[in-house]
Structure formats: C-alpha cells, structure tokens
C-alpha cells in the first residue's frame, strides 16, 4: 500500500487546474465587495454598494428575474417531456433507438450559436409568432435543456429495478398509477437532479440566446455580456455573486441527488 495514492506531479498539475477553474470566481466575489469605483484588485476596502447597485439596477430587476422566469418555464416543460422520452428510451427496444437517442442528446455538442441562428431563421421563415417572442426563446431553451433531463433521468431509470413497478401492477395498479406511485417516487432524486440541471443550463445559457434575445427580453448572461462590453463597473461582479450562489446551491443539490448510494428509503426514526 502506498501512503499517498497519486504521484506528486499529478497533485501539482491538479492544483494548477483547480486554480485556473476557481480563481476567476474567487476574484469576482472579492471584487463585488470592493469599495472603489471601478474594477480593482486587490479591493480598496469593503462595501456592499455594488451589491446594492445590482439589486436596484435594471440588470437585476429586468434580466435576473427574466432569466429566472425563462429557466423556470423551460425546466418545467423539459422535465416533463424529457422524463417521458427517457422512460420510452430505457424501456423500448426498436430499430433506430440509438439514432434517436443521439439526436436527442445532440444539442449538448452542437454549436449553440449555430442553433440559435438556425432557430431565428426558422422562426422568421414560418411566421408563426415565434420570431423575437418569448415563446420562441422558451422553445429554444427547452431544446437545449432537454438532453440534460433525458441523460440524467435516463440514468436513474436504467438503475431502477423494474420488478418494483411490476409488483405494483400485479397488486392492482394500472400502468399510469404504477408509474406515479412507484417508478416516479423511487427515481424522484434523478428526476429532481435532471430538473435542476435543466434550470442551471437555461439560466446560464448564452450561446443560444445570443441571436434570439431582444432588448425587451434579455436573459442575464446576455445582459451581463452587453454590460461588460460597454462599461465595466463592479455591478457585474455583484451579479456574479448571485449567479455563483445559485449555481453552487443547485450543483450541490444535483451532486447529492445523483451520487447517493443505492435507493434507500428515508429511515423512519
């Protein structure tokens, strides 16, 4: 048995990698509590002025809440559609299943910017009230969040022991009832993790929103981008603190939900 599991070189490189991943975030948080008038590091004195500026400014009032609403709706829709699709993909054996699965996971690797442009052109071409409207943007977000739900819920369903559902059926539950009473309850963690993933992906989505956003409907990432291009004050760092908190909380939730060992029931005292 070695005392240390991994070679020193690995540890050193891993430390550099972590630094590169985390330092920008840490710097942003520190900058948000900066006293000074512009971007500065190390900060001169502590203050909540930029947090306050963010909370009272348009970035928060308009974009943060808009993004929240958008992500909420997208999550709701893609959780329902994605869970249904994942169930069918796990249960059915048919020719072309792998192709269909690949298509449904494709938005993860397809360039978001290209999808955004394609959707914008498509909306313009079909003239059905999707061009530069909330519905159009929402559908785009459903599209890019669906793969995350399908993958996460699919993994949970693949682990799910089907005899539980069959037991419910032979005890007298119809297929729908058995799903809601047993399958959904037992895989609830996976479904919740998928939903959280969808929310985060939509909330942080920049690429697909780039062409579909308008000045009245500007999700937070697009608004942040606009604001950093034209003026750099620490309000953006303050916004970052909120985004960081949201993401950390949800990612902790996702991780806890997807990595629990086995499917234990909550012990009753």
């Amino acid at each position, binding site marked *: 048995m070695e005392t240390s599991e991994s*070679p020193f070189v690995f540890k050193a490189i891993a430390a550099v990698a972590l630094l590169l991943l985390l330092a920008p975030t840490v710097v942003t948080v520190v900058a948000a509590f900066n006293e000074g008038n512009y971007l500065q*590091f190390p900060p001169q004195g502590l203050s909540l002025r930029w947090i306050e500026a963010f909370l009272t400014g348009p970035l928060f009032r308009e974009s943060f809440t808009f993004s929240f609403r958008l992500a909420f709706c997208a999550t709701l829709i893609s959780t329902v*559609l994605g869970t249904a699709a994942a169930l069918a993909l796990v249960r059915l054996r048919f020719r072309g299943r792998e192709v269909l699965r690949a298509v449904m996971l494709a938005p993860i*690797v397809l360039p978001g*910017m290209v999808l955004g442009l394609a959707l914008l052109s498509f909306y313009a071409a079909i003239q059905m009230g999707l061009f530069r409207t909330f519905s159009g943007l929402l559908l785009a977000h459903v599209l890019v969040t669906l793969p995350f739900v399908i993958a996460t819920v699919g993994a949970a369903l693949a682990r799910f022991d089907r005899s539980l559902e069959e037991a419910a059926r032979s005890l007298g539950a119809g297929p729908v009832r058995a799903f809601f009473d047993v399958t959904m309850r037992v895989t609830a963690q996976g479904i919740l993790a998928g939903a959280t993933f969808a929310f985060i992906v939509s909330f942080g989505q920049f690429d697909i929103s780039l062409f579909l956003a308008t000045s009245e409907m500007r999700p937070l990432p697009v608004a942040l981008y606009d604001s950093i291009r034209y003026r750099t004050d620490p309000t953006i760092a303050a916004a970052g603190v909120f*985004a960081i908190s949201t993401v950390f909380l949800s990612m902790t939730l996702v991780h806890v939900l997807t990595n629990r060992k086995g499917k234990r029931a909550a012990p009753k005292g």
Partner: protein
Amino acid sequence: MAATTSRDGTYLLLVPAAAMFFLFMILPLLVLFVIGFNPPERGLLAVQPQLSLENLVRFFTNPLFYGSLLTSLQLSAITVVFDVLLGFPLAYIMARTSSPRVFTGLSILVLASMQLDMTIRLYGMIVIFGNNNGLINQLLVSLGLPKLQLIYNRTGIALGLVQATLPFMVFSLISILRNLDRSYEQAARSLGASRWRAFFDITLPLATPAVISGAVIVFSLSISSYIVPILLGSSRVSTISMHLYQQVSEMGFWQFGSALGLIMLAVSLGAILVSFSLSQRYAGSRF
C-alpha cells in the same frame, strides 16, 4: 416485454420530445442549410428559391475568412491538448481518492465552475491576467520582471477556452476512471511494473475512450465559442464565430452568416465522426 409495453402505449411517450427535436432542431438546421446556399442579399432574412455557391466561394477565396477557420481550429486543438494535460491529473486524483468527502467537494467545485456564467468567469480572468493591472503582471512588476501580454491575443483566447472547457474534460475522464477496476493496475504492479509503467501501460490505454469523447466535446465547444474570443481576443485575431456574429448582427448578411454556421456545424460533426471511428477502431483492437 416489447409486446406488453407497446400495449401500454409506451411509444406515445416519445412523441412530444421527438416532435420537439424534429420541429426545433432538425427543421431549423435545414432552413439554415438552404439559406446558406441562397444568393447573398443584404438585410434579407428569408428562404429564397434560388440556390448558389456564392457564400462558400466567398469564404474559401478570402484569406480573412478561411484564415479565421484555421485560427479557430488551431485554438481548439491547443485547448484540447491543454485540457488533457491539466484535466487528466485532476480527474485521476478525484477518481482515486479514498475519501468520499474529498470527491464530493471537488466534484461540486468542478461542476459549479462548469455552470457558472461565462461573462463573470471571463471578467475574473481579465482581473487575473490583465495586461496592465492584472494580478499576475502586478506580481511580475513587484518582482522587477517585465510584464507579459497574456490577454487580448491568441494566448488570452486559449487561456479562456481552457478555463471554459476543462470541466467537461474532467467529467468525461472521471466517469471512466472511477469505474476502472484498480486491480488491473495493482496486478501490473505485482508483476513488477513501476507506478509510472503501470500508469502508462494500463490506466492510460483503458482511459483512452474517455479522452477521445472528452476531446470531442471540448473541441466542439471551443470551435463555436463566441464569448471567449470576443472578450479575451483582439480585433487582430479573428475566429469564425466572431465573423458569424458580425456578418449576421452587424452587417445583415444572413446568407453568408448561415454559410459560416454550416461550416462550423460541419467541423463539429466531423470531429464527432472522427472520434467515433477512432473509438470504434480502438475498441476493436483491444479484443
């Protein structure tokens, strides 16, 4: 089982999602395809009946444009290499830690850094790597060393792309390394291989499929990234994504912009196909 489930109508569950992907992914991409082959007409966002190769010809005859594709390819390749070099050790340590708490902690950090808003991360990158007041340059100056030009050039874009894509590589690797039975490595050690020998002979080859699949995701994300080159690059380094945005949003050349999008799409799909055949061949040679 198939018979029972079709009786339940399980197939119907696929319909909404399949319709979603058909209507809002496949059809739009077809529209994009047609527009990319429409003759250029400034300011017109519509599908025209005439087809032409004018956009592609313009792309491949103007060094400004095909050069930007080469720049993007080069930056993406560099990003893949650095992601593997930095990501493998991190993933290895995470996969091999015996403490679940360390694993959970590191996973959450990496997962969170993957999902965090890109603008905010790049803002942090500017603060750290800034050419005048960046932390690194402040440090160099205080040590009496000359300043480095770390951003607003190719280096800056590469740094930003690595920052942006590293988590994807790490997670792709972890999924395999965690399930890789440690006893293979231990068997090699007991047969007389040194730790490094065992790593290069056993662990690395077994992890190759994960490296390949991580590389595709990273490559595809890098080639299509717009926000990184626009915030950390300069007007002297142009990537294909920057031209795409400019052509469409600033100049109204929808047809040419669509053609650029098609090229970007083709490169991404090409990378996926290459990696797929690589991992097929790799899997084939193992048995």
